[in-house]
C-alpha cells in the first residue's frame, strides 16, 4: 500500500463579492497525492488549478479565503497552520517551482550562492557539506560543469538553464512533494522536452511526489502518472493518464482533446464553443452545461457529483459518462481538412532579405548605411502566392517575428527587397509606403490585451481602419462595423464593450475583425493563438480559415507551436538563427522532415498522448548569435560533417517531395540516416 503524502478533503476556497456573496473559486475538491506519484493538474485559465496548487503549500492568495475543507500534509492541516510552522514545511518538505524561473532568481547573486542559501535555510548541513551538495544538485539537474555554473549570474544562463537552477533549488531541501506551476511554459520546444525528461528522471530517482500544473496536455501527458482535469473550480475527471487522455469520459476533456491540433494529423481540429463561466455565475446544474454537446434538461437542473468508475479507475463528474465510454471506442476523427485556392501568382516576394538589429554608428546612421557582416536575419528568399498560408516556424531567436515586422514596414531591412505583387517594391520606410500597400498588409498580434487599446470600445477599435482607408462616416461606418463584427461572430451588442469586458477569445476576434476591416490582401499573424486557451484556440483557427476562404486572403503565420502550424498552413519555412533551413509544403515537411534541424524540432514536440515520447536528438543549448560562417545550425547539429559545415554556407537542394533544404548532406542520405537511427 502506498503512503499518502497529501490529502485534500472537501476544499472550497473563494472570495467575498462586493455584494457580500461568497463566490467559490475552488469547489469541494477532494483528492490525494501518493508517495512517488506524479499528478498532473490540467485546466484552462480560470479553472482554479493554480489556486489549488498554492493551497497544497498552505497558501491562499490575498483576497481569497478558505470557506471549508482541509488540506492535510501527513497529519497536519496546512490551511490552519501558523506561518512559523509552515516555514518548517515550505522549502523543506514541500517545494514549489514557479512558472517564470528566471524572474524568481535574484538577478545580482551568483547561482551557487542562491543554492547555498536554499540549503542553509532548508537543511542543517555544514559549509563544506553544502559546497559538495551544490555540485551534486547542479549535476543532478544536468547543468554542464557545475563549478563554473555556480559562479555565474542568472542572466548569463538561458531560459532552460534557469529553469534547471530553479529545480536544483527546489531539490535543496529534499522535499517530499514538489509543486510545479507551468514550469515549461514559455520555453522553446526542444528545451521544454529536455526539462520534462529531467523532471521525469528526478521523480524516479528520488521518489519525490510531484504535482505538475499546466494548461498544456502535451506536457502533462509526458510527466504524469495520474491526471486531474479541472473546470470552473471543480475536478471533473481524475484518473490514470492513459485512461484520461485515451478514453476521456467527460465531455469537456473529450472536446478539449479534439480541439488540440496534432502533429500526426493534418487539418483543423474541431472547436469547442463558448468559454469558461465566470466564478459565481453558475447557480445550479452542471458547470459545463452551456458548452456541452451531450447536455440534456437533467444537466441544467442538477449538478453531477464526482463518481468513481471501477473499471477505468477514474472519477468523473458527468451524468452521461457511459455514453462517452461507448463513443470513445469508435475513433471519431472528424478533423476538417483545409483546402486553399492557391493562385499561381505571387503576391509577396522576399529576395535576399537581411535584417540587422545591430546598433548603428552615428556616421553610418547619417549616411543611412547599415554595416553588419553578421545580421540577425540573412538571405531570406521566399515567394508567397495569393491565397496561400505560409508558416514561419522556429524557436526564439529564429528571426520569424523579425521577418514579419519587416514585411509590415516596422523594421528596416538591411539588404534585399520585399516586393508586393510582381513588381511593386515596398519601401523600407513605413512613412513612405503607399497607403494602398499599408492597407493591403495587416497585422494580428499575439496578445489581444496588448494589441487592443484598453480605452477604446469595440466600435472605435474596428472603426479605425474603416475611417483611415475608406473614409467612412456616420451610419455607413456603423453599418460596416456591424457587418465586420458579424463576420467574426460577434453581435451588435459588442459595439459598446471595452476589451476588458471580453473573454480572451472574443478579444482576439475583435483583433481579427480590425485586420479584416481593411480588406487586406495579406494578413501577418504573429503567434495569434499562443495567448489563448486551447479550446478557444481551435475556434480562432477555424475562424481564420473560414475568413480566408471567403476573402481569398493570404496569411503569413508565425508560430512556435508546430502542431498549430501544421493545422493551418499550406507551406512551412523552418528558420534557425535567422537563416532558412527548410521550406516546403507542410504535408511533406511534417511527414518527411529532411533538414537536421527540422528533425530535431519536430522530434521534440509533445503530443497529448503518453505513448508518443519526444525524441531528444540535439542538445538544448541556446546560441546567442548566428555563426559568422558556414551552416547556421552547426552549433547543435547532431549530423555535423566537420569543417565543411563550419566554413561553407550549405547549398539549397530540393528533394523529391518538394521540400528544399540547406545542408551539406544529400537529402537522400539524410533520409537514410533517419531511418537507420
Amino acid at each position, binding site marked *: 500500500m502506498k503512503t499518502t503524502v497529501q490529502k485534500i478533503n472537501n476544499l472550497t476556497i473563494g472570495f467575498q463579492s462586493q455584494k457580500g456573496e461568497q463566490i467559490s473559486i475552488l469547489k469541494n475538491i477532494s483528492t490525494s497525492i501518493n508517495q512517488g506519484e506524479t499528478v498532473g493538474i490540467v485546466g484552462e485559465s480560470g479553472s482554479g488549478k493554480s489556486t489549488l496548487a498554492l493551497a497544497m503549500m498552505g497558501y491562499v492568495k490575498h483576497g481569497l479565503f478558505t470557506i471549508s475543507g482541509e488540506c492535510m500534509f501527513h497529519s497536519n492541516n496546512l490551511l490552519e497552520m501558523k506561518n512559523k510552522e509552515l516555514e518548517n514545511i515550505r522549502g523543506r518538505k514541500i517545494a514549489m517551482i514557479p512558472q517564470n524561473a528566471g524572474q524568481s532568481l535574484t538577478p545580482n547573486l551568483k547561482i551557487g550562492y542562491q543554492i547555498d542559501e536554499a540549503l542553509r535555510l532548508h537543511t542543517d548541513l555544514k559549509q563544506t557539506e553544502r559546497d559538495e551538495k551544490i555540485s551534486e544538485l547542479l549535476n543532478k539537474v544536468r547543468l554542464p560543469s557545475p563549478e563554473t555554473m555556480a559562479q555565474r549570474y542568472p542572466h548569463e544562463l538561458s531560459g532552460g538553464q534557469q529553469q534547471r537552477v530553479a529545480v536544483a533549488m527546489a531539490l535543496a531541501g529534499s522535499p517530499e512533494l514538489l509543486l510545479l506551476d507551468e514550469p515549461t511554459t514559455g520555453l522553446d520546444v526542444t528545451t521544454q522536452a529536455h526539462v520534462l525528461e529531467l523532471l521525469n528522471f528526478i521523480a524516479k530517482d528520488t521518489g519525490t511526489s510531484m504535482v505538475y500544473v499546466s494548461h498544456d496536455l502535451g506536457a502533462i501527458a509526458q510527466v504524469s502518472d495520474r491526471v486531474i482535469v479541472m473546470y470552473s473550480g471543480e475536478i471533473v475527471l481524475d484518473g490514470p493518464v492513459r485512461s484520461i487522455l485515451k478514453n476521456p469520459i467527460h465531455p469537456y476533456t473529450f472536446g478539449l482533446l479534439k480541439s488540440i491540433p496534432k502533429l500526426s494529423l493534418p487539418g483543423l481540429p474541431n472547436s469547442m464553443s463558448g468559454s469558461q463561466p465566470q466564478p459565481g455565475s453558475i447557480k445550479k446544474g452542471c458547470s459545463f452545461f452551456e458548452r456541452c454537446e451531450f447536455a440534456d434538461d437533467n444537466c441544467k437542473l442538477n449538478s453531477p457529483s464526482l463518481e468513481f468508475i471501477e473499471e477505468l479507475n477514474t472519477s468523473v463528474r458527468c451524468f452521461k459518462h457511459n455514453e462517452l465510454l461507448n463513443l470513445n471506442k469508435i475513433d471519431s476523427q472528424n478533423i476538417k481538412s483545409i483546402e486553399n485556392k492557391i493562385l499561381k501568382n505571387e503576391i509577396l516576394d522576399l529576395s535576399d532579405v537581411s535584417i540587422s538589429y545591430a546598433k548603428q554608428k552615428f556616421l553610418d546612421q547619417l549616411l543611412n548605411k547599415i554595416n553588419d557582416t553578421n545580421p540577425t536575419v540573412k538571405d531570406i528568399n521566399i515567394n508567397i502566392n495569393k491565397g496561400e498560408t505560409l508558416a514561419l516556424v522556429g524557436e526564439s531567436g529564429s528571426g520569424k517575428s523579425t521577418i514579419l515586422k519587416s514585411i*509590415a514596414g516596422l523594421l528596416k531591412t538591411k539588404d534585399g527587397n520585399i516586393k508586393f505583387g510582381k513588381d511593386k517594391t515596398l519601401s523600407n520606410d513605413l512613412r513612405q509606403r503607399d497607403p494602398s500597400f499599408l492597407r493591403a498588409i495587416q*497585422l494580428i498580434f499575439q496578445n489581444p490585451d496588448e494589441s487592443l487599446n*484598453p480605452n*477604446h470600445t469595440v466600435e472605435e477599435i474596428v472603426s479605425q481602419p474603416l475611417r483611415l482607408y475608406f473614409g467612412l462616416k456616420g451610419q455607413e461606418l*456603423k453599418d460596416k462595423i456591424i457587418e465586420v463584427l458579424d463576420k467574426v461572430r460577434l453581435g451588435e451588442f459588442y459595439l459598446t464593450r471595452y476589451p476588458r469586458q471580453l473573454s480572451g477569445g472574443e478579444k482576439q476576434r475583435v483583433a481579427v475583425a480590425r485586420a479584416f476591416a481593411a480588406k487586406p490582401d495579406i494578413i501577418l499573424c504573429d503567434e495569434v493563438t499562443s495567448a489563448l486557451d486551447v479550446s478557444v484556440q481551435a475556434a480562432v483557427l477555424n475562424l481564420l480559415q473560414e475568413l480566408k476562404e471567403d476573402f481569398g486572403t493570404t496569411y503569413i503565420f508565425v508560430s512556435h507551436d508546430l502542431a498549430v502550424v501544421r493545422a493551418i498552413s499550406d507551406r512551412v519555412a523552418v528558420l534557425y538563427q535567422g537563416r532558412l533551413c527548410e521550406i516546403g509544403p507542410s504535408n511533406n515537411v511534417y511527414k518527411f522532415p529532411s533538414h537536421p534541424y527540422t528533425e530535431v524540432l519536430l522530434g521534440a514536440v509533445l503530443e497529448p498522448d503518453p505513448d508518443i515520447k519526444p525524441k531528444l536528438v540535439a542538445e538544448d543549448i541556446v546560441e546567442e548569435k548566428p555563426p559568422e560562417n558556414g551552416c547556421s545550425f552547426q552549433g547543435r547539429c547532431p549530423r555535423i560533417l566537420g569543417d565543411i559545415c563550419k566554413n561553407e554556407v550549405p547549398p539549397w537542394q530540393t528533394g523529391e517531395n518538394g521540400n528544399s533544404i540547406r545542408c551539406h548532406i544529400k537529402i537522400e542520405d539524410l533520409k537514410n540516416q533517419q531511418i537507420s537511427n
Partner: protein
Amino acid sequence: MNKKKEKQKNTFEKIYEVIKTMASKPSGLIGLTILIFHVILAITSPLYVPYDYKAIDPTLMLTPPSSEFWFGTDSLGRDVFTRTILGGRTALTVTFFGSLIALLWGGSLGIFCGLVGGKIDDVVMRVIDAFLSIPWILAMLLIVSLLGTTTLVLIPALGFFYGKGIVRVARAATHDVIAKDFIVSARARGHSNMSIIWNEILPNVRDAIMVEGAMRWSWMLLGFSSLSFLGFGVSPPTPDWGLMISNARGLMSFAYWAVLAPIFGLSSLIIGINLTADAFAKALGIDRSTKAPV
C-alpha cells in the same frame, strides 16, 4: 452627427460615474464638498458681502469678532469676514487657469518626449531637471519684478513652473503605452503621428495627467499665496488670503482673528483640492502611492 452625440453622452456618463465613485468614500465626499463650496463662494460672494472690502474706518481698527463683524476687523478697520469670503477669488482663478496651462504644456511636452524618445527626449529631460533644481520662487520673483504682478503675468508664469512635474508624469505614462502592440498596430496601419497621439496615446495617459494636474493645483495655490504673502501676488487693496495673512501676522498675539480667518480659508481649500484629487485618482484606478514620480 449621430455618433458625436452618442459619444458626448458617453463622456458625460463617464464623468458622472467618476464623480459618483469619488463621493462614495467619506474623504472624497468631504473634499468635493469643500471644493464646491469654495467655488460657489468665489463666484457668488460679491453678491452678498456685508461690507465694502476696501472701506477703511480708523475707528473700527482691530475690533474682535462680534455679531456685527463676524470675523472682526483688521488693522485698517476693514471687515475680515468680507475680505475672507472674497479673498479666494483671485487665488482660485489664477491657479485654476495656471493649472490648465501647466496641464497643456506639461502634458504635450511629456507625451512628445515619451513618443520620440532617444536623444531629443534625453536633452529635454535634462533641461527640465535643471529647471527643477532652481528654487522656483526665486525665478518667480524675478519674473514678477520684471514684468509686474498682473494676472496675465502670474497665470502663465505659475503655469510654466508647475508644468514641470506634469511633463515627467506624462512622459512616464506615454513610455508605458508606447511599447504596446496597439500603438505598433496603429503605426503599421499608417496612421499619422497626430492621430496616434490623439486616439491611441491620449486616452491612456489622460487620467494620470489629469490627476497630476489636480495635485499641482493645490501646490500652485500654496505657491501663489506665498507670492502674495511676500507682496508679489495681487496688489492691495484687493482682498487675498496670502496678503491678509502677511498684513495681519504681526498683530497675531492680540488680533488672532485677522490671521486665523484667511488661514482657515486657504488651508481648507488646499485640503479640499487634495482630498478631491486623491479621490479622483482612486476613482480612475490610479494608485498614487506606487506611481509618485517626483
